[in-house]
């Protein structure tokens, strides 16, 4: 774990900031243009979820290394309403979780920790191939 960037998401402008920083990191790590676009889209969706459903929250972007693989992890932490049924929200066609099922498709792994009334932490990782 070498580099770590944190963006507080309060207004819509912050979504763009998070995307910008994410793309920069993805480029440095060595992701190609398509994956850069995917990582940025994932960050955008996560940030948008915070912006729409939680009063405050943040996006943390980290460079990660495991064995000889390099990658990026994005963590979204909010103190919003929380998710009652994670599996349901990841189903296609769910309007509220529509963004999250997209994120899941854009990355390699996804972990969701949520408590109703307290908030949600989502951590996703994408590895360089």
């Amino acid at each position, binding site marked *: 774990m070498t580099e770590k960037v944190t963006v507080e998401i309060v207004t819509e402008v912050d979504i763009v900031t998070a995307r910008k920083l994410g793309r920069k990191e993805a480029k440095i790590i060595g992701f*190609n*243009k*398509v994956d850069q*676009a*995917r990582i*940025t*889209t994932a960050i955008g969706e996560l940030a948008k979820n915070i912006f729409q459903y939680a009063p405050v929250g943040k996006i943390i972007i980290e460079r990660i290394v495991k064995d000889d693989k390099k990658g990026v992890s994005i963590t979204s932490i909010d103190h919003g309403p929380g998710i009652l049924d994670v599996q349901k929200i990841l189903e*296609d*066609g769910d309007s509220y979780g529509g963004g999250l099922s997209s994120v899941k498709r*854009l990355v390699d792994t996804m972990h969701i920790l949520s408590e109703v009334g307290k908030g949600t932490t989502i951590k996703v990782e994408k590895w360089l191939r």
Partner: protein
Amino acid sequence: MEQLKRDYKIILSNYIHNQNESNLYTGQNFIKRLIQKNVSPEEVISIHKQALEEIIEDLPESTIHAYDFLIEVMVHFGLKLKEHQSLLMKQEELRIEMEVAARIQNTLLETTIPNPENLDIGMVSVPLRKMNGDYVHFMHDHKRYLSIAVTDVVGKGVPAALCMSMVKYGLDTLEYANSNPSYVLEALNQLIEKSVDDSMFVSMCYSRYDLETDIFTWSSAGHEPPLYYDSREKVYYDLESKELLLGILPEVKYSQHDIKLNENDFIILMTDGVTDFRKQENFDPRQYIKELALSCRHLNAQEMCENIYKKLQVLHNYELEDDFTIVIIKK
């Protein structure tokens, strides 16, 4: 992937040098391979961009930016496509589930048309979708009495089918072929009223036929009125009752009526799917059915039903909008 990229570059390069139909055709076939390999739209753009950069050495900076922009916006197309594919799979799961359910319903609601001496009975019952919201229940004790219940549950598809199972269970438990139709409707009404929600109901025409006296006794709960053709007077009678649907009020009394059938008389029992002509406002479907049945009354009851069904299908341009059930009994 690398192989695909090389192949694409060749195809693109060929086309750039020679814009003929054959090169275009090759390109379209190539995209099929990409789709099979699950290559996303944004990747296709990226492959194109890379190939172009290699074919044309001094590609302007602005074009490269334009491609990067396209890659970015195509990410969402790719996501929608994946979502669509996953919904298709889900749809397939539902379809299979539905087929199983329909098979179970068919077994559950299977009915055999009785074949007594001196009375000819025919039936056609076709669901609009997989599950049938119409149901015909026959009972023949192989003695004097025979009973026919023609039922239509509100709505179509699965909700109707679930409710229908209950109706069938109700009919099975309380029915004897010689029960009074009014009694059967009263008992069923209580059962259904207790078990369904406020917007659900069932219409039913319950009839009993006395094979010794040829007396047809019927009761109707909000059902499409049956038609009775008196062959001696050569007239039809609409068997109207105006009595309430099943499942709306807890205590409802039903009346019952007798008709004596003579040689060549017939009765048509049906559901509203037969008379529903939504798109033709100034058309009297019951009149049409009367004429249709008359024109084929030389046939046996089963053939008459099939004939009417076929004619109505044509009239509806093969787009019937409801479950369709018709039963004819003919003396």
